């Protein structure tokens, strides 16, 4: 029964983790460097959502605020700091993205200090299904996360711009020949990818509290989800996020909660040693 409860918790946290993992992996597919500023952007999104929620917006509106602020910040930093360096290779851009993540984290720290803050959500009684405990709030956030993912998948599969994005990720030269403007696709990937990361930061902060290191704490799980599914693969990131979410919850039963975060690192090492392309392979939309 404890195991079943852990699995349910894992599915919930996996759903929330999937949102920023899609953002990270989609940016990697299009822009071709690992953008480490996701830690700072997730924190920024969490705080933007916190302010919006405090100002009286509903949950969906607050998530939209988190998306917009994080997306704009991600776009701006890609333009100013990361993409100009990509000519020198993926690594300088990746290193610069550590610095931009640090900038965002400290901007939040300047404004809000280090004290943890909580979203003041109305308290609701947990619901029991059999012996499994679920809180209505978890169901709400999970539903919003699923809706968002559905939106992303529909956009990628059916819209012109989504197809252009997939084409550009698959083969940039060929896509450019077909009249797809690579800079536009890059900008879109930065905005939407980081928007999702910002929303993810907020979703993962909803049940606990947020502080300037909120994003840093989810970094390992986020990378693990993306690497496990195959770096650059959007469905892979979702699968990876569910697996990491469940593995983390199950690990609590075995080694205790303090090593929850280490699960991600172990998963990365195992995947890279045994199946480096990840479960679904790179760039498999």
């Amino acid at each position, binding site marked *: 029964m404890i195991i079943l409860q852990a699995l349910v918790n894992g599915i919930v946290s996996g759903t929330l983790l999937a949102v920023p993992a899609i953002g990270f992996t989609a940016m990697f597919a299009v822009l071709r460097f690992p953008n*480490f500023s996701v830690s700072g952007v997730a924190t920024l999104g969490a705080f933007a959502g916190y302010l919006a929620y405090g100002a009286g917006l509903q949950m969906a509106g607050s998530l939209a605020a988190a998306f917009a602020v994080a997306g704009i910040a991600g776009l701006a930093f890609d333009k100013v700091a990361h993409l100009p360096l990509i000519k020198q290779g993926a690594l300088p851009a990746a290193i610069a993205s550590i610095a931009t993540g*640090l900038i965002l984290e*400290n901007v939040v720290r300047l404004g809000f200090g280090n004290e943890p803050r909580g979203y003041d959500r109305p308290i609701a009684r947990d619901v029991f299904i059999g012996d499994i405990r679920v809180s209505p709030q978890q169901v709400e956030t999970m539903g919003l996360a699923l809706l968002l993912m559905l939106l992303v998948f529909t956009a990628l599969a059916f819209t012109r711009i989504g197809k252009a994005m997939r084409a550009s990720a698959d083969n940039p030269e060929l896509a450019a020949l077909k009249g797809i403007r690579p800079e536009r696709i890059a900008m879109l990937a930065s905005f939407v990818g980081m928007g999702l990361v910002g929303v993810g930061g907020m979703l993962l902060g909803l049940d606990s509290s947020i502080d300037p290191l909120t994003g840093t704490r989810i970094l*390992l799980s986020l990378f693990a989800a993306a690497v496990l599914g195959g770096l650059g693969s959007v469905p892979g990131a979702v699968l990876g996020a569910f697996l990491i979410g469940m593995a983390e919850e199950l690990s609590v039963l075995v080694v205790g909660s303090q090593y929850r975060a280490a699960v991600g*690192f172990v998963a990365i090492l195992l995947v890279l040693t045994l199946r*480096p392309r990840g479960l679904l392979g790179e760039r498999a939309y």
Partner: protein
Amino acid sequence: MLSYLLFIATIGGIYGLLALSLNLIWGGVGMVNLGLAGFFAVGAYASALLTTIGHAPIPAGWLMALVAGGFAGLVVTLSTTRLREDYLAIVTLGFAEAVRLIASNEIWLTRGTDGISGIPGPWKRALGPDFNAVYFLIVVLALLVVFFLMRRIDRSPYGRALRAIREDAQVAQVAGKPVLRFKTEAFVLSAAIAGLAGALYGHFTSYIAPDMFLPLITVYIFLAVASGGTGRPAGALVGAYMVMTLLESSRFFVEWIPGVTAVQRAALKELLIAVALIVVLRLKPSGILPERMPPAPRPS
């Protein structure tokens, strides 16, 4: 004032060791280590534990730090050398986080977030106030040894092979260079040096805790190598002292701004370092001492 300068110079020297370590793989082979802070921590903890709990002499601790750092480097590279460079970036970044996690939670060994205090310094009691000066000389000695080793590697056929791998690993492979072995060796050596730097740090401050090994240190060292000159040991050294100067002068600068709390001051300092790194990477990626490519010796 003198003891303050000696303190700064010693910490700067330790950053110099880290910068040489990073320069060997980043400047030399074109590999990246975003978990430098983790290897630094591994060395610091290895030496501190051996000399406090194990009561071993300090040089044994330093040796242990070299071995432990190198071993950690081997573990990290084994799973990633065959893969693209961005995977190594992710794994090393994760490694540093994992090290901090272990140091915070294995309380029976590392005393958790309380940290390890009372790490012995060489001849500390006998030297009294002169300890800082003597320790500075020890760090300088270590720095010189590593510096000349790096220079030797830089100018040797081995160093040229490493640079060939950096420029184009496939060509190097076709030319018969064992690319995987060279990459692993360079990374292990680099990680061992970072471990040694950690040990020197721990025995100097006599106290270490998981909070001292934040990713921020990695950013400092990248700033040092990038601003000093990637691919040149002297550049790494100059860069390390430039970063130290920037850090210390920014401390006076932020104290001078009225109406900010201690947390905000720390945040401003970190902001400054991060902005500096981006500015250097964008405007002067070759640094102030750009790499010199020594001509290959002509066959006689």
